[in-house]
């Protein structure tokens, strides 16, 4: 069934891309465009998370950390050195690659929750460090992107959010492309085997440690690249908006709600969850009510629809359920 979907998938994705390309021609309100930018950004982030969390079943709670690395390097270097955010992408990539290696190196030799635990602790530490070095990061008060640079494409400064819409759309298309290719590579296939049964995968000679590490590094690097654009899009960053635990959960949740281990899942999840949270935020205030949804969302999905909402679109969804139940601990 997955095979059949694989053949159809590029067509669906291409159609979706065409529709999304046309959206700014119809939608003129900058507010709606900015919400769509959030949707696209989280679709991209969720897809990146999916590479390790979905295909590999290694649940990471530190993607907010990589997002923050991208966003903070972009804004800080722009502020202190006056260099275009485009040129900071490389720095964010190197940094997040090193940190992903550091987290993965020890914990991927173990199985199960150790990785999750280390990621949770890591993003917390990064948040504390951002608060501690207030002299350069702005601490809890955060910091604004400086207006030193000339507006324009080269410096990622625009009058409206439409250019960011297209940038995020291109990013999402690239991440989806990476995911399509990743599914077919050996690493991607091995990772699925690890998710199903790590011990069995190991006994077949798969170097599970290396496979998991590679997927995590890829996922982290992509996240920090999106972070650069996300940070410049926000124009103002503080530890709560890019590095908080709720951001980490939101990134994972997008993929979990849509359907982990699929290309379409995180995209669908983002376009459902982000507007819902926005709506709840308007209705109940930014904390409390809207964040209650994150928790409730996870609980309900894990209980009733472990394969995510994408399950609804699959004809043979029933065969899947059987597998989810018998998949041992």
């Amino acid at each position: 069934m997955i095979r059949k979907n694989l053949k159809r998938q590029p067509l669906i994705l291409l159609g979706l891309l065409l529709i999304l390309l046309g959206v700014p021609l119809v939608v003129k309100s900058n507010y709606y465009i900015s919400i769509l930018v959030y949707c696209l950004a989280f679709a991209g982030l969720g897809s990146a998370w999916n590479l390790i969390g979905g295909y590999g079943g290694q649940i990471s709670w530190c993607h907010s950390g990589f997002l923050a690395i991208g966003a903070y390097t972009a804004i800080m270097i722009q502020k202190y050195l006056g260099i275009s955010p485009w040129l900071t992408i490389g720095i964010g990539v190197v940094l997040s690659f090193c940190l992903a290696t550091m987290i993965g190196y020890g914990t991927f030799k173990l199985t199960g929750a150790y990785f999750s635990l280390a990621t949770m602790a890591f993003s917390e530490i990064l948040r504390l460090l951002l608060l501690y070095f207030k002299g350069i990061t702005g601490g809890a008060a955060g910091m604004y992107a400086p207006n030193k640079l000339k507006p324009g494409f080269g410096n990622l400064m625009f009058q409206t959010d439409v250019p960011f819409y297209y940038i995020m759309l291109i990013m999402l298309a690239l991440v989806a492309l990476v995911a399509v290719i990743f599914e077919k590579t050996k690493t991607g296939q091995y990772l699925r085997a690890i998710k199903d049964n790590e011990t069995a995968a190991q006994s077949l000679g798969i170097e599970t440690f290396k496979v998991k590490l590679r997927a995590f590094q890829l996922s982290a690097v992509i996240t920090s690249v999106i972070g650069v654009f996300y940070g410049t899009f926000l124009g103002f960053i503080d530890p709560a908006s890019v590095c908080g635990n709720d951001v980490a959960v939101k990134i994972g949740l997008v993929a979990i709600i849509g359907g982990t281990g699929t290309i379409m899942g995180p995209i669908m999840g983002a376009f459902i969850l982000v507007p819902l949270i926005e709506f709840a935020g308007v209705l109940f205030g930014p904390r409390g009510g809207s964040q209650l949804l994150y928790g409730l969302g996870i609980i309900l999905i894990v209980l009733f629809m472990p394969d995510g909402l994408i399950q609804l679109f699959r004809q043979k969804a029933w065969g899947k359920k059987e597998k989810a139940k018998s998949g041992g601990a």
Partner: protein
Amino acid sequence: MSWIVGQAIINGLLAGGIYALISTGVTIIFGVMKMINFAMGEFLMIGMYMTWIGYAVFGGNGYTQVLFAIAAMVVTAYVCFRLTIEKLLGRSSTAYILMTVGLSFFLQNLMQIIFGPNYKTIPSSINTQSIYVGEYSISVPKLIAFICALVLIFVISEIMNRTSLGRVMRATAEKTNVAEMLGIDTKRTFTIAFIMGIVLAGIAGLLLTPIYDIKPTAGTIFKSTALMIVVLGGEGSIKGAFICGMFVGLVEQLVATFISPDLGPAAIFVFFLLVVYFRPQGLFGQRRRTV
């Protein structure tokens, strides 16, 4: 200088007692069910609120609510278990991780909606009392929390080692399917282990009410620390959780005193990574670990 060091050591050990208590709760659940409970901090926070409710209804101070708080935590834990965790038994550990993280978010924000974001306190004359040993001051609520934590940990480890309930739990921890074949009701054992762990977190919450403000995010600071302590200590090892709890409290306090209060958790994390690299079975664990 030596006074600062001495005072930091005292404060560190006192804080370590509470860490050890929460970690014992985590380690019982972890040992028996092979589940890391990411919502432990929130159950601690609920324990604080239950104590506050008890205080608002019955009066007195925080400590006199102990029976009410325990009863409330048993109910909370049982409801949580029946509605969520029980449905996941036999599924992969990923489901546990997602569920407990979901629970932690849900509970934290549920409390925020019910009680509002403002701090609550239970006023009592004990809260600010200190006793002096030589030149060092020891805060009375911290000392009470420390002593209660030690007693509780001792009681729990005696239950695990000497009673038939403890034997059943250890057997289930060792090999669940074999225990089942031997006629042990493993689901019931899981329920008891889960409730025991949650009640310990709730009591830790009660003991903390004179020391910290009661607020929806009160548990967050204890959450990742307690989980790291369990990994440091070793799978299901109460002794490990106890010693590492004290040690982590000490390290955190020393770093906070001499470098910066913000960096205490960072030091623990670095230590955690070092242990995972060089001694993945934990400082007091024996077996190769798979969760």
